[in-house]
């Protein structure tokens, strides 16, 4: 009896492959050889660390992240990106054909650094990450800050009264009765906001007087600078930002307790005005006039877009690190990957931006530990509280704007 054949030329008798053979070919398909220099996945060697003189160290552990895979690798790449951002100097690039006269000298070029934009959402200021962010601003390790209203007021309120630890599962109705507000697993009693109102209202009255009498034009960044001076407390980000002339941008200043205060204040002083246009000018000019820029963006929403958009004005940032929990499947800007920003010209096409998927409270202290906190100038001069660090984008220290 002839078995019907299915394939092959009429000359050969092809035998249908057995199931075993089919499976074997599928599974054991020979692979292309990866280039020899492709890194190997290799996690942290605990045994080696424990038996070493220093034992297990943070730096040792973080050093292993790059080859651990998944978000650990992304963290390792983010560390590298921040290192590049901090190490950049104008003399890394050739002198432009239309370069300014005073930017030709190599000695001068060696002083000019990348301008770093730090952006963060307000929940991070409610959290203990505020201490890490303050550290960066205190030591002038960033040049521009972008945040939302809560990012300003929660920082100031913490100088008046503390935020407390709670739990995600605390019942809303019960908390409302007790006059306690919940932010994730953090708690802010109403009393804290009452203290803020009592502190802020006289300052607003003074500012309104200055507007009418001295012609002072208030913008969100100038208002925040003023509040930073008024709070006069070394725990506060706004305090150090005002001290070092680091502008804090917050176009949606009304979207928070500050906005509530301004609303009530408008009944007393309807002519008090805050100019948003002057601030978009100031922020975008910061990007346009920089020789190189880097963005460190924690969270999504306004802070992410506003910072990227400013960098669009200079055809894209040279360096970028995003840390957020957003996903791109809904088309949101919050969840968009750096590559989407490249399509807009918000990040340069030849840049190596990186996104770390994760909660910034977990991720960012580790990033700072491996980069900013290892700053040689900082660690060499231990004990000096006068804000040594990198900063400024001109020759030596540049004078920042005071209240104009």
């Amino acid at each position, binding site marked *: 009896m002839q078995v019907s054949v299915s394939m092959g030329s009429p000359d050969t008798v092809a035998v249908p492959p057995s199931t075993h053979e089919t499976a074997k070919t599928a599974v054991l398909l020979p692979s292309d050889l990866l280039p020899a220099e492709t890194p190997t996945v290799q996690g942290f060697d605990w045994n080696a660390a424990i038996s070493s003189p220093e034992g297990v160290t943070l730096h040792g552990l973080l050093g292993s992240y790059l080859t651990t895979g998944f978000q650990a690798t992304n963290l390792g790449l983010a560390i590298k990106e921040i290192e590049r951002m901090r190490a950049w100097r104008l003399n890394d690039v050739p002198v432009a054909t239309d370069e300014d006269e005073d930017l030709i000298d190599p000695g001068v070029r060696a002083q000019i650094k990348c301008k770093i934009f730090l952006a963060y959402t307000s929940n991070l200021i409610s959290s203990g990450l505020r201490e890490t962010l303050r550290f960066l601003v205190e030591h002038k390790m960033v040049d521009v800050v972008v945040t939302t209203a809560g990012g300003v007021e929660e920082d100031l309120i913490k100088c008046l009264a503390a935020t407390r630890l709670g739990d995600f599962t605390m019942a809303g109705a019960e908390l409302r009765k007790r006059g306690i507000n919940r932010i994730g697993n953090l708690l802010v009693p*109403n009393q804290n*906001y009452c203290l*803020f*109102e009592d502190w802020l209202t006289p300052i607003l009255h003074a500012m309104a007087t200055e507007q009418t009498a001295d012609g002072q034009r208030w913008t969100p960044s100038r208002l925040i600078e003023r509040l930073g001076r008024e709070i006069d407390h070394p725990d506060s980000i706004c305090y150090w930002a005002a001290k070092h002339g680091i502008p804090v941008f917050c176009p949606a200043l009304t979207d928070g307790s500050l906005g509530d205060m301004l609303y009530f204040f408008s*009944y007393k002083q309807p002519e008090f005005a805050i100019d948003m246009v002057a601030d978009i000018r100031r922020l975008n000019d910061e990007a346009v006039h920089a020789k190189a820029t880097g963005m460190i963006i924690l969270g999504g929403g306004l802070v992410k877009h506003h910072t990227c958009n400013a960098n669009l004005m200079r055809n894209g940032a040279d360096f970028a690190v995003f840390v957020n929990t957003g996903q791109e499947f809904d088309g949101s800007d919050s969840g968009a990957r750096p590559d989407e920003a490249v399509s807009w010209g918000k990040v340069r096409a030849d840049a190596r931006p990186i996104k770390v998927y994760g909660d910034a409270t977990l991720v960012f202290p580790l990033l700072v530990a491996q980069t900013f906190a290892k700053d040689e100038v900082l660690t060499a001069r231990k004990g000096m509280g006068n804000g040594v660090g990198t900063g400024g984008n001109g020759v030596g220290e540049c004078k920042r704007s005071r209240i104009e």
Partner: protein
Amino acid sequence: MAEEAAATIEDYDFSGTTAGASDVFPSEAGQIKKGGYIMIKGRPCKVVNVSTSKTGKHGHAKANFTAVDIFNGKKVEDVVPTTHTTYVPNVNRSEYQLLDIEDGFVSLLQEDGGTRDDLKLPDYPEGFDQEILKAYQDGKSLSLSVLSACGIDQIIAYKEEA
């Protein structure tokens, strides 16, 4: 009083009442209800609506007043923390029989039998003065309601006597 009545309402400054005057009395803002009176921007007003927001992210509990100026009908708004002291005008309403109208001034019969001639015909609402004048000229016997607060007296209504 005659020269004061001739001045316009805007000439008055209510913000500084002397200790002896009982034009206004202090009250906790949270105690002032709809239908009550309140001083807003130095003007005596009647409260049309109050809404309160409890203590929260915006700070202390606040009362949001919508009120109407009792003399010129203008709608005004104010927001005051409920525990703050604000001022309530002492508002009085009296009825007087109309005796005469001359040069826009009315002559009223007081309780003690004397006359009072210092009040002008009201300039609010529009045309109200003409209405009173016509009723008087038609020979009707009128009694006028006069509202008093913060040193201002103003005719706000009239009634025909049988």
